């Protein structure tokens, strides 16, 4: 009994381990959903080489799938010295079902490590209505989310000929109130159009009344040209979006929706047996020709332009064949295609350059343009008009170069100068003009050019700073002007009738300015003390005091000093000023 229970336990553990190692699993986000409501199918697969799942059976079961979000991780295992890479992938598909009932999501096949595995089938109950009607401000009744926003894919034809243009319109309808908006994926997926050549595309927005409601319709139009006969399909247009609206209380409501437009079957018929000269164009076309002028000059080129305009694939329209003109050299054609905006209308021009080689009256024959017109289910030929032209002989024939041989040989060797490039420069001055320096390289002069404005800046800065100090620092200003002021006063004193009278005053003012002290009441003893404080040399102090006293004596003496004595005093004062100025500057610095 004990042995049996052990065996059971081992078997159970083995089963658990086997289940845990199941390389493929699937799950759905909900077992019940309403018709049109989005739920998610999640697939997991583990293995060294995991392929994409085959979802064909799921789509066949009526489940509409959107683009999946894929997660992938890779790990490396070392077992007994052997390494192996394990991939773990998960796909999360948004899905919805339009019909109510019980839907069984069939087994989904995923190939892992070369072996096909199947997920377990899953069942989901789909209830009748996806959206309970919701009241919307501005609209009288209640509307379902499906009525608020939906998409349609329509074509203008369901049966076409191979190459015939077909217009596909993908339309997003959004109820025209200011309260409803749709958010789609960042890049709106487009339906599969395999088997069709893509033509012009456009997008516009307009208003449309649909089922008694006014909608704002965003339309993506594109022209398709069926590439092969048979039954072709324009794939279903599926994408996941979010509808937001304001309810009557102005609260924002939202609902995720899978927007779906079913696939469109197109029957493509093959073209009947092609006639000779068929241009390859299929559609509705007009064919016109234009000759710039009919009075021509020998050697002067003239342009002959054919225009094919209408609805059809411009890439399949070949150039109309201009017959050989013995009297002219024909070059081209130059082709230009012009596509009308927001319309399948195209215009393709073929421009030939005719250079008349022989003077006289000549004919440009009518040129046919054969295309298939689906409206009459047959080929149609349009003809250009026939042109009669007169060619006058050229004076010098300077646009032609003819080289020896027969007339035909001459024609074959004629070289027409076509002004494809601009002519050479012949002005001699241009030869030496090294105009326009290389923008990527700088000359030495250019590299040194900031030096001048920098120098100007530095000089201006220094000068302004000095001016600022003069106005702010009174002591500095007195010191700066002291010497000049004193020498000027000395000069005036010398010129006066009694020079010795003010010599002591101006010397004291000079010393007071230099030391930034008040000159009033300053005596020679005060000056001596002040100079000693400033550590001026003893001999300079002695000399200053001596001159000061001599000046004082001369001033207060009862008699006027003689000219020699006055001159000696002035000179001594000047010397003292120079000496003190130098000494005090040195001390200040």
């Amino acid at each position, binding site marked *: 009994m004990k042995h049996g229970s052990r065996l059971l336990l081992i078997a159970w553990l083995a089963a658990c381990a086997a289940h845990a190692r199941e390389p493929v699993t699937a799950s759905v986000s909900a077992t019940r959903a309403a018709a049109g409501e989005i739920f998610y199918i999640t697939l997991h697969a583990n293995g060294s080489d995991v392929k994409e799942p085959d979802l064909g059976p799921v789509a066949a079961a009526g489940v509409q799938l959107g683009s999946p979000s894929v997660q992938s991780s890779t790990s490396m295992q070392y077992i007994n010295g052997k390494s192996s890479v394990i991939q773990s992938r998960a796909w999360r598909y948004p899905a919805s079902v339009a019909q109510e009932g019980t839907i069984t999501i069939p087994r989904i096949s995923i190939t892992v490590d070369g072996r096909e595995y199947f997920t377990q089938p899953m069942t989901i109950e789909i209830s009748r209505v996806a959206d309970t009607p919701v009241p919307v401000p501005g609209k009288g009744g209640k509307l379902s989310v499906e009525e608020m926003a939906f998409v349609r894919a329509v074509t203008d034809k369901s049966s076409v000929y191979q190459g015939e243009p077909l217009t596909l319109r993908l339309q997003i309808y959004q109820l025209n109130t200011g309260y409803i908006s749709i958010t789609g994926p960042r890049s709106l997926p487009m339906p599969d159009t395999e088997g069709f050549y893509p033509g012009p595309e456009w997008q516009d927005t307009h208003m449309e009344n649909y089922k008694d409601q006014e909608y704002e319709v965003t339309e993506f139009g594109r022209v398709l040209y069926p590439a092969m006969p048979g039954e072709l399909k324009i794939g279903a247009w599926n994408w996941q979006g979010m509808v937001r609206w304001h309810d009557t209380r102005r609260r924002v409501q939202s609902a995720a929706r899978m927007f779906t437009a079913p696939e469109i079957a197109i029957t493509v018929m093959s073209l009947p047996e092609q006639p000779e000269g068929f241009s390859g164009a299929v559609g509705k076309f007009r064919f016109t020709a234009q000759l710039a002028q009919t009075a021509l000059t020998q050697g002067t080129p003239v342009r002959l332009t054919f225009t094919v305009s209408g609805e059809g694939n411009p890439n399949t329209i070949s150039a109309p064949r201009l017959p050989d003109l013995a009297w002219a050299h024909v070059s081209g054609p130059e082709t230009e295609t012009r596509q009308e905006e927001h319309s399948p209308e195209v215009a393709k021009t073929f421009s030939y350059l005719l250079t008349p080689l022989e003077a006289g009256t000549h004919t440009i024959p009518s040129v046919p343009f054969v295309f298939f017109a689906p409206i009459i289910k047959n080929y149609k030929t349009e003809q250009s008009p026939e042109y009669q032209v007169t060619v006058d002989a050229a004076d010098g024939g300077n646009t032609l*170069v003819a080289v020896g041989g027969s007339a035909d040989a001459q024609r074959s060797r004629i070289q027409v100068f076509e002004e*494809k*490039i*601009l*002519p*050479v*420069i*012949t*002005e*001699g001055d*241009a*030869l*030496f*003009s*090294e*105009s*326009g*320096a*290389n*923008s*990527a*390289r*700088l000359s030495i002069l*250019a*590299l040194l*050019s*900031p030096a001048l*404005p*920098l120098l*100007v*800046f530095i000089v*201006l*800065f220094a000068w*302004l700073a000095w001016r600022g100090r003069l106005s702010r620092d009174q002591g500095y200003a007195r010191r700066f002007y002291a010497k000049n002021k004193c020498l000027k006063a000395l000069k005036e004193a010398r010129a006066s009738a009694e020079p010795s009278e003010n010599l002591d005053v101006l010397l004291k003012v000079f010393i007071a300015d230099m030391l930034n002290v008040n000159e009033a009441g300053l005596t020679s003893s005060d000056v001596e003390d002040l100079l000693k404080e400033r550590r001026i040399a003893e001999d300079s102090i002695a000399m200053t005091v001596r001159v000061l006293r001599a000046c004082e004596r001369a001033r207060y003496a009862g008699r006027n000093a003689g000219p020699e004595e006055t001159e000696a005093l002035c000179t001594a004062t000047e010397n003292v000023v120079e000496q003190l100025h130098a000494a005090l500057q040195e001390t200040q610095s």
Partner: protein
Amino acid sequence: MITAFLITMSALGASGDAARLFEEAGTAYSQGNYEEAAGKYSELNLMHNIHSPALLYNLGNAYYMQGRLGKAVLHYAAALTIDPGFEPARKNLEQALGETKRSLPVPDIRQVSANPLIRYYPLSPLQSLLAAHVGLFAALLLLLARQWRDMPKYAWAMRLCLAGACIFYGLALAGDRASRSAPKLAVAQTEEVPVYFSMNESEAPRFLLYEGDRVLAERVEDGWVCVYAHGGERGWAKKDALGLVEHMIW
């Protein structure tokens, strides 16, 4: 004095010769003698050492008219290197490129160069220099504004302008230096130019360049050029088959 006079006279004589040769080349061109015109323009370019954009442009025209598209593209590109605003050269270059086998675009030098300044800095040295001048001028104006009204924000703005000017000047110097060592433009001169993995002609070519194709020459060694083509292909091509010209980075 006499020496100066002699030098001046000889220079005048040389310029007279060059002008005459230029005129002769123009006459040959107008008469359809493109080979002769190209020879005379080349003589002016090489013997008289004249590198004016007009001469290089005319040389390009003479080669174009001979159907030598590689040389035409090379000379138009050279003219544009000297004068980037030379519109006729740009137009004719476009025409010549349109007639080459595949009109290969010039690789983006910013992706090739290891220099971060070339890779990421958007301004040319000249633009950086102009920015430095603007910064200095603004600093000067702010200095004067401070005299008018001494506000701390003027002082800060002035310091900022000075710092900006210094930075831009530094970038102009560095950009100028970088442009001197940048890869040159190489133009394929022969109908087909094989490009090899290494400097070995016996191995199978890695890819082919066609006449007029423009690539970047990263370095030149022993008669071989390491080229970088549009799309990121690299390889070695014979120097004789390529024409080199300074490349405009900015």
